[in-house]
């Protein structure tokens, strides 16, 4: 494959957008940060790809006005996935692999605070048989957590440990919506929200946006002194229907990581786990041992901006390469109810 690296990353994650900016207003400064990091301008970008959702925006064609943030006269080579921007990054990586372009800028955005997120996401279910019952995201995740408890795969203390570590790490993340570690005992003393999940087991509703710059070969070296070279990237899907899946494992994450070349040597993994027990499912599916540092950013339990949280995991993992903290990292994204789809991006630094 053609050597390609993550060379730029900018993000916003917040509880709600102050002043209700349009997506273009929000994206302009983020794109500007990417230009500053890489030393490039709009004309240096060969391909653009974004990820977002019309339903989150409550309107059709929500990405149309967002691309105004690029300044698209003269016109640009551009595409969009109705998915987390991590999948837009995958499309951009493909485009670089075809040799048509050397550089790409990927962005994602979503304003979850505009509606009732757990209700909006119920519209992702089977419209003929499930949606009319309105099972919400948190309840579905609770079913998944219960399945693991019943199977003896984890206990409530294990969930609290995940939360405690995440929220302690989040104290160092300026974008965290929720932060502040406690103790397993104190966390377990808090009330249930959707049994067996407590509020801290569930990602906060978050508005946000993110942008990532990809580049091939010498263009990557030109933009970043220590690019995060993508050594493997792949994704896979499971079926939606909960009755046909073993919710305590993740076949799609297993297939994705196998196709991405495995996790041997990975030192840091940024996992997109919007519920505490999902981190445990993913660690097992991805084959991550206890020596792997998980989500030093605080992860999705600290902030989970829809349609950019997965891309942010890739950006946060890449930062570990850029600053020399690690030589091999993994960024992960998920989509759909109960970890239905998973994407894995393994990156390496070279000295």
């Amino acid at each position: 494959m053609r050597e390609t690296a993550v060379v730029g990353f900018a993000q916003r994650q917040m509880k709600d957008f102050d002043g209700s900016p349009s997506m273009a207003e929000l994206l302009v400064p983020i794109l500007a940060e990417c230009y500053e990091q890489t030393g490039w301008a709009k004309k240096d970008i060969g391909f653009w790809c974004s990820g977002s959702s019309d339903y989150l925006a409550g309107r059709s064609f929500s990405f149309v006005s967002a691309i105004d943030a690029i300044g698209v006269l003269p016109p640009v080579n551009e595409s969009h996935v109705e998915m987390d921007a991590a999948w837009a990054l995958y499309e951009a990586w493909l485009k670089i692999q075809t040799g048509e372009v050397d550089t790409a800028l990927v962005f994602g955005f979503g304003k979850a605070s505009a509606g009732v997120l757990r209700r909006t996401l119920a519209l992702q279910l089977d419209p003929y048989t499930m949606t009319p019952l309105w099972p919400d995201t948190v309840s579905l995740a609770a079913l998944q957590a219960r399945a693991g408890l019943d199977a003896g795969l984890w206990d409530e203390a294990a969930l609290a440990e995940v939360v405690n570590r995440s929220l302690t790490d989040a104290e160092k993340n300026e974008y965290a919506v929720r932060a502040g570690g406690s103790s397993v005992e104190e966390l377990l003393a808090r009330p249930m929200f959707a049994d067996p999940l407590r509020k801290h087991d569930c990602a906060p509703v978050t508005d946000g946006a993110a942008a990532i710059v990809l580049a091939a070969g010498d263009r990557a070296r030109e933009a970043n002194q220590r690019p995060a070279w993508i050594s493997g990237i792949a994704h896979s899907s499971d079926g939606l229907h909960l009755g046909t899946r073993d919710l305590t494992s993740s076949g799609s994450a297993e297939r994705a990581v196998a196709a991405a070349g495995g996790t041997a040597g990975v030192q840091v993994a940024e996992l997109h786990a919007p519920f505490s027990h999902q981190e445990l499912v993913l660690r097992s599916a991805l084959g991550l041992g206890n020596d792997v540092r998980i989500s030093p950013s605080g992860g999705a339990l600290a902030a989970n901006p829809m349609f950019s949280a997965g891309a942010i995991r890739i950006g946060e993992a890449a930062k570990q390469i850029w600053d020399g903290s690690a030589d091999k990292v993994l960024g992960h994204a998920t989509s759909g109810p109960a970890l239905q789809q998973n994407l894995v991006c393994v990156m390496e630094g070279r000295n």
Partner: protein
Amino acid sequence: MGKTPAAVIGIGQTHHRAKREDLSMAGLCREAMDRALEDAGLTLDEVDAIVIGKAPDLFEGVMMPELYLAEALGAAGKPLLRVHTAGSVGGSTAIVASSLVQAGVHKRVLTVAFEKQSESNAMWALSVPVPFVMPVHAGAGGYFAPHVRSYIRRANAPSHIGAIVAAKDRTNALKNPYAHLHNEGTTVESVLASQMLWDPIHYDETCPSSDGACAMVIAAEDVAKTYDSPAWIHGTVMRSEPTSAAERDQVNPQAGRDAAAALWKATGITDPAREIDCAEIYVPFAWFEPMWIENLGFAPEGAGWKLTEAGETAIGGSLPINMSGGVLSSNPIGASGMLRFAEAALQVRGRAGEHQVDGAHRALGHAYGGGSQFFSMWVVGSQPPSN
């Protein structure tokens, strides 16, 4: 680093209707997919990845329907990508699928695009008030009518050109068993006699609203070579420009001109009107045929309507356009672009049935979306690309 050559080895589409009450969304996709897989002689198990496209989710009222469709699409256990680039999405989806093969990641990729517009209400879905943006609430026809009027003025075109296009496309649709509209006896006179909807656009110069889907199997060179008549992908392109900008030319958008120029360059075509044997272009309102003829560089600016008037865009003319009946005869929005790409492939495979253009060896598939701001195109040929 070169691309892996890729080709279309299977094509399928649904019968298009205003309402396919006999099928769910999953059934609609499967009707097209199963035909494409049968055409390619493959089963879903032999497909490496699925790429799906459709226009806004509000058209059916399901958020990210690919999630619920995963099992029906055969995507459980496989990579599944969902593309959405407005009306150009069917084309963009095919391009992303071809990228998966050209990048050397997969050997056989299934791509499908659909719209089941009868599940919801497209006019409502397009009329949600948007903060900061002036709502038009006039539907697509109301949006595009001023551009058509502007074209007529700038090109000094006679007022019956749109009717020629509509009569031609509806006549071509009679040869296409999958087309939504089979309106016998449509003539220039009957089109001009139909109700004026958005002056200068008559009722019969507009597209229907359809339920439908289209699917293709795209394969790498070594696989495609084992097939009788693959449609080789010679070049693909996408370009976007903003919705509103004072300097935009919505009659002849720069994104379309740039896209066409890049496509002709990539495919080594210097005189598209001579070197392209036939074209399926996205014409939801009849007047867009002459407008896109110019935008694509098939004729100089202001001269597109002359090709139409001279009958050159009919089957048997020098540049047949929309042999299938086009968007004017079937418009499942998310699938409409892929139908154009698939018809171009059918033509160069020599498998277009009654609407086959004799000697079609190189064809253009074209789609556009938004307010004439998103463009996707490909050129396919009966021979592998030489570039």
